């Protein structure tokens, strides 16, 4: 029996109306271009009798009588109805309707539901919307496209670096809490091997999902949507559905996609070009009387007026300019010229097909990035295979397999060990190109951050004190990483009865990550080698029973399931200590001293059962209820089982109103509980391994009491969430609006509470606190212009979230989330009871209470307070605006995203002032003199404030170096903390679709060419030029609030060609 008749059979079986006069209707459904449309649902109105169209758009349906109306529905098209009458053939042309939100959405556990029946907020983004400009990390391409989702990105120079995502604000008091990523039903790891703001950013492993393979992404924003994920669902869920082939008449198509873009760095901090290296404006002199430049990394020195000086290279006898004087002149582009023009090549091919009883898709994509930071690159291969086979009429088996392979050589970022520190500490007079040949023939490294012997005029100690030659770092200090990743599932389902189906899934996500670091000989650190290998396997064994039945006006859908989750992780890390026994022998065995060797095993299991019932009445009223039980091995054994319920409902009031303009109206409300547990082994205290001491009598291996005190009484944390929303569509769905109000209370948070060290511990694992988020999300869609020649589609997303910490731990009203230290000044990220999450507390201006002006000391320098509150790091609102214009065959798409508020601290900006590099440190004062000129001759920075000694207002001129270096750049953080508000044009694509006669002469079914730009323009930002508030994410820290030398902004421009055979 073929598939058509099977569908008919099913239609009959599910129909409870006694049939007496059957009619078979046939026909073809086509799209705007009269091309057959597969997968269109064809339903007899008011019944469950239905079928769907084949690969060529044809269908056949048998209905009980000829009095009915057929309804044709497909995602992306306006529905149509056709009265059957006496016809036996009904052909329909569906009109594309981008505004029509997909009727069918994927919900928790991969259950497909009709949009109207859902009582909570979800938002879907289609795959082609994610590959507009070939963003590497799928999370990055969600920025601005979903209301209530905040994405904090990283510079393109990191090549797939960390992209952080938060749904509906910060719901964990410690700032953690990433949504669960589920791909075709398989929960996947979101591990990140990066450190914090300093070091190499390897990115979160979610970048292994190939954007080219994605059909759609659906964001389950609140616990109501994610309650079925129980203990893993507290922070929302991102459901990704990959592309699949279609069952039906035999069909095969091949698509090829190729994109190329070039990448340019931009957005440099404005620096001065008047004064060169030094602590003061007098040249240093050698014993022989020659003026010379030392290895100082500050630019408070003499005017770069061309005076002949001995530069660093003149102190190397190997150098052709040894002993020579060269002019002391500014090098305005000495940072920019270090970087290279990168490129990004992305090629993919996919094969999609199917026949009567199977479908399949195979995709392969290869990406290569040559980075903007010298000697960095990334290679990636993605292979995707999905297939489904009807073994018998009742038994279907399938598999989804994704393989990703990455290898990269990445830049270091942050404060030291990389050229990202060049705007912080450097000499404005250094010619970067003179440093390019960093090694002399005899192996000596050419360094600028070293000092000559003033008598001999030769470098005696060639070890730089703080900064390597950046080219030495780029070519001799290498960070390599490699990951093989396999994820997917095999599944089988059996249709026991027409209304009852059972399915089983074995899901797996496994990867092997290796990371190495080579430190070459000749830099400021001893040479060395670090190697880590990490293996992670997460399996889910899942059972699902689904029951669907209609009783007249009542539709019933019941799902029950069980799941066993297992985590198995092991890691090995080795590092040499004290150098390499033979230069260039990069192996742990080369360690001069006893090498560091660490191994770690983590295992975890969660046993879950769950059930969900959804009930619809007359397709107008819908009610959902679900419950899940989780038993987690990470919780204390006597207290490890918890329940998570949810209930939601929706009401399609548009069905009851006669107002024609309103094509769709839904009111929805939900309440749910979701949760999260903790990392493994956090409930039993152990000792830890300390370092080893090789006494003459033998090795002493020390043992220590860990700094973190664990807790045997820990419970999972719970999130109680309530939301209410309204979905409206007008004018045949040309205008749509969705608005949601939510309130989520997260209690019993599992925290590493910072405690007074005097307790003997630094942190204590606790259940504490209550954090509340309330907010509004708005999503507007519209097609302001629709004509044959020109259409304009726009989507606007907006979300406002208010966060409040209602309670913390008894006696400790402040949670210290993070701390950074520079020049003995601490800045804290603190969360305080009664305030919103994450305020920056650090040193700043001491303010005169009466006038609000800055208090000045006896030397007229600003006085400082060590604990000023600079406000919350959380944004007030976020959103995005997406516009698509179609003019004939041209399509122009532009994506803008924006954020208001959220404080961040720029270490680069502060240090560029402290080191005398920032433009303002050599500005002209109101008397027309450079601020660095002597005070007596009219120089100095003008300062106004209240004298602490006299209480009188004073205006004075103060020495620029003392002002910027000792005061502002050291302990006045008011000047260096900025709002991250921005409006950014993130993606632009201008495409041309070939069709009709041109295409007919080619072997192609479809062809499209596009010019793309990723990250082309920051339209507006509140923070000063040279910083990028949208790219603060530079590692695995939960909250990005400090910029310690982020990689330079990258703008890329390219072309994209897609062909389908």
């Amino acid at each position, binding site marked *: 029996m073929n598939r058509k008749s099977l569908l008919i059979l099913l239609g009959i079986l599910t129909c409870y109306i006694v049939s007496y006069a059957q009619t078979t209707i046939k026909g073809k459904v086509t799209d705007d271009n009269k091309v057959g449309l597969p997968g269109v649902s064809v339903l007899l109105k008011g019944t469950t009798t239905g079928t769907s169209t084949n690969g060529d758009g044809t269908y056949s349906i048998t209905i009980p009588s000829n009095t009915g109306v057929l309804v044709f529905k497909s995602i992306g098209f306006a529905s149509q109805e056709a009265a059957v009458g006496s016809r036996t053939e009904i052909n329909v042309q569906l009109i594309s309707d981008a505004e029509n939100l997909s009727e069918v959405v994927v919900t928790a556990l991969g259950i497909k539901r009709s949009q109207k029946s859902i009582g909570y907020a979800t938002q879907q983004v289609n795959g082609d919307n994610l590959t507009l400009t070939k963003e590497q990390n799928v999370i990055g391409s969600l920025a601005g496209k979903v209301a209530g989702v905040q994405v904090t990105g990283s510079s393109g120079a990191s090549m797939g670096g960390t992209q952080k995502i938060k749904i509906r604000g910060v719901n964990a008091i410690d700032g953690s809490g990433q949504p669960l990523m589920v791909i075709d039903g398989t929960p996947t790891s979101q591990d990140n091997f990066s450190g914090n703001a300093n070091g190499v950013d390897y990115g979160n492993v979610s970048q292994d999902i190939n954007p080219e393979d994605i059909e759609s992404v659906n964001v389950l924003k609140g616990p109501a949507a994610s309650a079925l994920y129980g203990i893993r669902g507290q922070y929302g869920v991102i459901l990704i559905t990959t592309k699949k082939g279609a069952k039906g008449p035999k069909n095969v198509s091949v698509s090829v996609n190729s994109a190329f873009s070039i990448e340019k760095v931009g957005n440099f901090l404005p620096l001065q070009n008047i004064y060169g290296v030094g602590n003061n404006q007098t040249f240093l002199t050698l014993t022989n009387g020659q003026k010379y430049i030392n290895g100082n990394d500050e630019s408070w020195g003499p005017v770069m007026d061309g005076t002949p000086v001995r530069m660093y290279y003149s102190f190397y006898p190997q150098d052709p300019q040894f002993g020579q004087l060269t002019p002391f002149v500014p090098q305005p582009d000495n940072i920019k010229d270090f970087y290279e023009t990168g490129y990004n090549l992305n090629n993919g091919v996919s094969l999609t097909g199917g026949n009567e009883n199977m479908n399949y898709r195979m995709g392969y994509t290869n990406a290569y990035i040559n980075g903007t930071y010298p000697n960095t690159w990334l290679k990636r291969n993605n292979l995707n295979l999905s297939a489904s086979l009807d073994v018998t009429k009742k038994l279907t088996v399938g598999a989804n397999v994704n393989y990703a392979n990455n290898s990269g050589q990445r830049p270091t970022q942050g404060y030291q060990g990389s050229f990202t520190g060049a705007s912080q500490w450097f000499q404005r007079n250094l010619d970067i190109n003179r440093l390019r040949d960093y090694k002399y023939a005899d192996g000596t490294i050419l360094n600028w951050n070293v000092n000559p012997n003033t008598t001999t005029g030769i470098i005696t100690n060639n070890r730089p004190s703080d900064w390597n030659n950046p080219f030495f770092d780029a070519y001799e200090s290498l960070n390599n990483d490699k990951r093989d990743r396999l994820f997917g599932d095999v599944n089988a389902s059996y249709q026991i009865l027409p209304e009852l189906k059972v399915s089983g899934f074995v899901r797996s996500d496994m990867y092997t990550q290796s990371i190495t670091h080579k430190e070459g000989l000749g830099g400021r650190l001893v040479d060395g080698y670090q190697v880590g290998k990490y293996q992670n396997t997460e399996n889910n064994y899942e059972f699902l029973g689904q029951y669907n039945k209609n009783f007249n006006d009542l539709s019933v859908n019941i799902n029950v399931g069980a799941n066993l989750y297992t985590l198995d992780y092991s890691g090995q890390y080795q590092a040499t200590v004290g150098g390499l026994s033979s230069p260039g022998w990069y192996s742990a065995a080369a360690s001069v001293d006893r090498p560091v060797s660490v191994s770690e095993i983590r295992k975890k299991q969660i046993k879950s059962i769950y059930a969900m019932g959804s*009930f619809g009445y007359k397709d107008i009223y819908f009610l959902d209820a679900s419950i899940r039980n989780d038993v987690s091995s990470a919780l204390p054994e006597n207290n490890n089982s918890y329940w998570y319920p949810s209930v939601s409902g929706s009401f399609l009031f548009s069905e009851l109103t006669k107002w024609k303009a309103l094509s769709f109206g839904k009111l929805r409300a939900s309440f749910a509980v979701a949760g999260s547990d903790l990392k493994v082994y956090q409930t039993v205290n152990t000792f830890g391994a300390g370092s*080893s001491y090789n006494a003459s009598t033998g090795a*002493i291996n020390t043992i220590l009491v860990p700094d973190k005190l664990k807790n045997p009484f820990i419970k999972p944390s719970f999130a109680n969430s309530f939301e209410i929303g309204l979905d409206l569509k007008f004018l045949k769905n040309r205008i749509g609006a969705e608005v949601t109000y939510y309130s989520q209370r997260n209690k019993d948070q599992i925290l590493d509470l910072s405690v007074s060290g005097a*307790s003997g511990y630094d942190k204590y694992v606790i259940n504490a606190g209550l954090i509340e988020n309330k907010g509004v999300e708005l999503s507007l869609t519209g097609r302001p212009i629709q004509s044959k020649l020109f259409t304009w589609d726009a989507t606007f997303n907006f979300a406002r979230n208010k966060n409040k910490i209602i309670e913390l731990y008894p006696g400790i009203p*402040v949670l210290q989330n993070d701390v950074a230290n520079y020049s003995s000044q601490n800045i804290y990220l603190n969360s305080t009871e009664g305030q919103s999450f994450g305020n920056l507390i650090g040193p700043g201006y001491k303010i005169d209470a009466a006038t609000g002006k800055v208090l000045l000391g006896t030397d007229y320098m600003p006085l400082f307070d060590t604990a000023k509150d600079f406000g919350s790091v959380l944004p007030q609102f976020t959103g995005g605006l997406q516009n698509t214009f179609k003019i004939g065959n041209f399509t122009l798409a532009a994506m803008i995203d924006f954020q208001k508020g959220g404080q961040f601290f720029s270490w680069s900006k502060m240090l560029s002032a402290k080191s005398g590099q920032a433009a303002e440190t050599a500005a002209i004062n109101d008397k027309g003199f450079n601020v660095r000129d002597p005070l007596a001759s009219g120089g100095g920075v003008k300062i106004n404030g209240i004298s602490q000694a006299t209480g009188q207002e004073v205006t004075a001129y103060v020495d620029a170096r003392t002002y910027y270096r000792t005061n502002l750049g050291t302990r006045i953080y008011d000047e260096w903390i900025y709002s991250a508000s921005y409006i950014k044009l993130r993606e632009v694509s201008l495409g041309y679709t070939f069709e009709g006669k041109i295409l007919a002469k080619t072997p192609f079914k479809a062809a499209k060419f596009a010019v793309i730009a990723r990250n082309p323009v920051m339209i507006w930002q509140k923070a000063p030029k040279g910083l990028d508030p949208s790219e603060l994410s530079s590692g695995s820290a939960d909250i990005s609030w400090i910029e310690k030398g982020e990689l330079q902004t990258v703008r890329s421009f390219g072309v994209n060609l897609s062909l389908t055979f």
Partner: protein
Amino acid sequence: MKITHKKIYMASLVLLVLSGCKKFDDSVTVDPNNPTKAGTQLIANAELFLPGLSSSPYGVHYPQYLSNTSFTDNSRYVTINFNFASLYYGPLINLETVINSTTLDANEGAVVNQIAVAKILKAYFFWHMTDRWGDIPYSEALKGNGSFTPKYDKQQAIYNNLFTLLDEANAAIVSGTIKNDIIYNGDVNKWKRLGNTIHALMALRLSKVDPVKGSAEFNKAVANGMMTDNADNLTFQHLSNATNENYWYNSFTVLGRNWFAVSKPVVDYMQPLNDPRLSVYANKNTAGNYVGLDYGLPGSVTVVINNYSLLGSNLRLQNSPVALVTYAQSLFAMAEAAKLTWIGGGDAVAKTNYDKAIEYSIRQWKNNDVTGLAAYMANADVAYDAANGFKKIGNQRWIHLFLHGYEGWAEWRRTGFPNFLSPAPNNNGAQIPRREGYPTQERSLNSANYNAAVAAFPYLPGADDLNTRVWWDKP
């Protein structure tokens, strides 16, 4: 609907049975990565923190042993707040765990000896801490979830508690050895003498504020038996490997930073007297002379490093030892106690101990080479005289304690010697510190107790800064 719910319930029940009970296999729940048993290895870990009490880029500047050649902020007292937390959750919690342990293993040495050694080290760490910060958490500290907001105890109470702790250790020690001892290779008699020497040095700290108590405790320590030789010194022997290397080696050689020169006051004091130790303390400049660097220069002054004496090369080898409590120090203490009439013998005993102290100081620093000792002792500025007894003891002790900044600073605060140190110049009137500020973390994590402690400072209430005096530093 009721029927449906019942169905769900039934189905759930079935699945609950299917999914098994709430038990997990031990292979899933037990942490395989960390040890669960420890004794003397905890003491060994605490011992690794000892050199850090001396090798500090802050403490070394207060008594002006070293000057900065560049980045002079530290010598200009820019840092006000210092963190004590890592001493609590580092060495002290290890020692407290040993002291309170009921599972110590006698195979690692007599249990009473393990506990006694832990108590002596605990007393030593706390003594160092209270001398830096004054009132600090003690009686409620190190209790984990027993108190995350421990109150601050008065320094006087801490001193009294530490005297008791040292008495207990002295009384408990039985003959034998303990395992895993980095300092004395398990010799508990040396530990006993160390405990009593610490006891005596602590007693001497009370000379200004409570001489009666000081004298009593001092005599108790003397009676219990103090150090008798340099071999008894509490010295941390660094090793020729990166994990256990000397701090100054790391700074000069690993990080390549010639940031520390011997200060002008030190060189100018030692050089005219032909002090044999100067060649150890300082290197000659490139011209071949000993030249001390002016103390605490502003950062805008460029120092030509070649012109000055950097810290002596032998004190910054990878395995250079760090001396913390020494026999010479105990001899200086005896000399001062005699001068104070805490012990008998008056100036005669003071002189005997003073002379011996200098000899053993030179032996310590110069590896038992006493060349030039006699000539040195003959200097009028060195030879003991009763009229200037305190001053001479004070100055010589300052020289002896070279590099151990925090101890030299404590003795300067107590005795006022040497009396020729001036604060860093042109520094907005900032004086030489008399205390270090509490860690800023305490303001939020332990605020009530922090505020109470600051409000109850003994001499200058309400200012958590560098100028407030600790209890024994009576003005």
